[in-house]
């Protein structure tokens, strides 16, 4: 087979969202990869500059479907810190509960997708069935399965009634037992091991150098977790620990994500059990004082960063959203070289890409005349030149 360009194009069954890989393949081996993002860019940063703090939060939530609470919390906590207002403890706990429930449902969704990508549809059906328990809990608390609209500058918009807390607590044991089953399924199930072990391996140094974040980095042994390094919400006084693994391949990332689901479940149970009393909202001023802040948040896919600058009016001067998937793309491009064509969906799915996070301006599919993309060999060439000490 001569060198062939296979375009795993913007619309492809394996990709939930539009990203374009032009993969140069020799037989089944990948020789070169060109990556083209931003088919789903909606100009959220430009739009955010025209909305006041009440109306900008629903926009922040719609940066991404699966991690909507992450974006609105990162933004809200940044603005609250700029306004120097301290939101009540109960609101912090409610935000933590919703954040961890979102992490659980995002990771379970990812596990199903990873199983589907290797054709193991049974696990796909089972994980998405168990994920319904998390979705029902969140729907009871916030009124919607995806966009929770819980956040508001100065606190939380809906309180958790005692009934909601008890029904949520009742669901956790069954869910915990199911997740326990998935943990040992991932470790023992031969059909997954054969496709995950040793695929898309990144060593610790490489992961650091490419700037990977979140479970992808933790699977290579880097124990970066913003919830512990730069504690926010109620993570400082909740007993939990950061999970890391040393395999660095898709297998390691699967294990890290499932352990994280177990950790999140513990956090949710702890927060539900000792939910402090008190108000859930503090009246926030209309304008934010002049200033800037780097609000960091641990989204399900990794470290999410909102750089917010305010200019004393009621609108934000600039919000620069750097999402975890954008940081992970370099590592995907690197670890795809001379892997098998069949492994592309597995490796791409392993960083759990969230494309609507990565790009933010309006664009529909334009068949690309010129492939103006970051091609891999430039990365390698510069990389090689760097290794020879030439800085």
């Amino acid at each position, binding site marked *: 087979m001569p060198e062939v360009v296979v375009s795993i194009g913007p619309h492809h069954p394996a990709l939930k969202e539009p990203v374009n890989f032009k993969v140069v393949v020799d037989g089944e081996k990948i020789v070169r990869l060109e990556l083209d993002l*931003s088919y789903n860019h909606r100009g959220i940063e430009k739009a955010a500059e025209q909305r006041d703090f009440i109306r900008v939060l629903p926009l922040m939530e719609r940066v991404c479907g699966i991690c909507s609470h992450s974006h609105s919390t990162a933004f809200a906590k940044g603005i609250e810190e700029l306004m120097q207002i301290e939101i009540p403890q109960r609101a912090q706990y409610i935000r933590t509960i919703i954040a961890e429930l979102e992490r659980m449902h995002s990771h379970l969704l990812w596990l199903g997708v990873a199983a589907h990508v290797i054709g193991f549809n049974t696990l796909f059906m089972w994980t998405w069935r168990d994920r319904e328990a998390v979705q029902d809990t969140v729907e009871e608390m916030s009124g919607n399965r995806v966009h929770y609209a819980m956040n508001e500058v100065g606190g939380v918009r809906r309180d958790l009634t005692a009934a909601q807390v008890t029904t949520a607590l009742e669901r956790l044991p069954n869910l915990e037992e199911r997740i326990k089953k998935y943990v040992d399924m991932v470790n023992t199930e031969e059909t997954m091991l054969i496709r995950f072990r040793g695929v898309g391996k990144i060593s610790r140094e490489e992961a650091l150098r490419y700037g990977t974040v979140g479970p992808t980095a933790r699977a290579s042994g880097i124990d970066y977790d913003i919830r512990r390094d730069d504690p926010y919400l109620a993570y400082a006084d909740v007993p939990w620990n950061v999970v890391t693994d040393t395999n660095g391949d898709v297998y390691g990332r699967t294990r890290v994500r499932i352990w994280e689901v177990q950790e999140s479940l513990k956090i949710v149970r702890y927060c539900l059990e000792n939910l402090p009393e008190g108000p859930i909202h503090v009246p926030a001023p209309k304008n934010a004082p002049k200033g800037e802040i780097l609000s*960091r948040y641990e989204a399900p896919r990794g470290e999410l960063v909102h*750089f917010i600058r305010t200019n004393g009016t009621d609108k934000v001067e*600039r919000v620069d959203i750097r999402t975890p998937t*954008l*940081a992970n793309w*370099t590592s995907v491009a690197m670890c795809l070289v001379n892997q098998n064509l069949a492994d592309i969906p597995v490796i791409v799915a392993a960083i759990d890409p969230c494309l609507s996070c990565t790009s933010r*301006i309006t664009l529909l599919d334009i068949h690309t005349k010129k492939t103006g*993309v970051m091609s891999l060999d430039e990365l390698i060439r510069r990389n090689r030149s760097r290794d020879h000490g030439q800085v």
Partner: protein
Amino acid sequence: MTEMSSPEVMTGKMKEFGITEQVRKNRIRITTAPDRVHYAIKTLQAMFGFDRLITISAVDNRTTLELIYHLTGPHRMVVSIAVELPRDLPAIATVSGFLLSAAIYERQIHDLFGIVFTGNPNMNRIMLNEDWPSDEYPLRKDWKPGPDTFYGGIKVKRS
């Protein structure tokens, strides 16, 4: 030798780069001139162990374009290096040579703000679509969507 001293000591040491202030418990902000950025980042990497680039953010404060490099390290401190660039001809040397993850961030800022990063090997489009008019940078404050220009995608009547 990465010095694990307290934030206050670190801020003191970083005075040499430019105006340094400690914003919060673990946040330090440095404003320097464009040509000293490389030197500042490299010393921070070597001396203070800031080995990871969190992100590069860009802000258009009407008179100048500002670039802020955020770095962090195993000691969990975050340093932000701010650089002001002239509005008409914003250019700065790339840092993707020794911070590989900066490649994507620089291309994104180039697309949206028009800041040229000299030396970045692959400066083409990543965020905007191919037939976006090449001289217009949407995230600048003075940019208004031209009523007649077509920016790709579906034709939307701009109210």
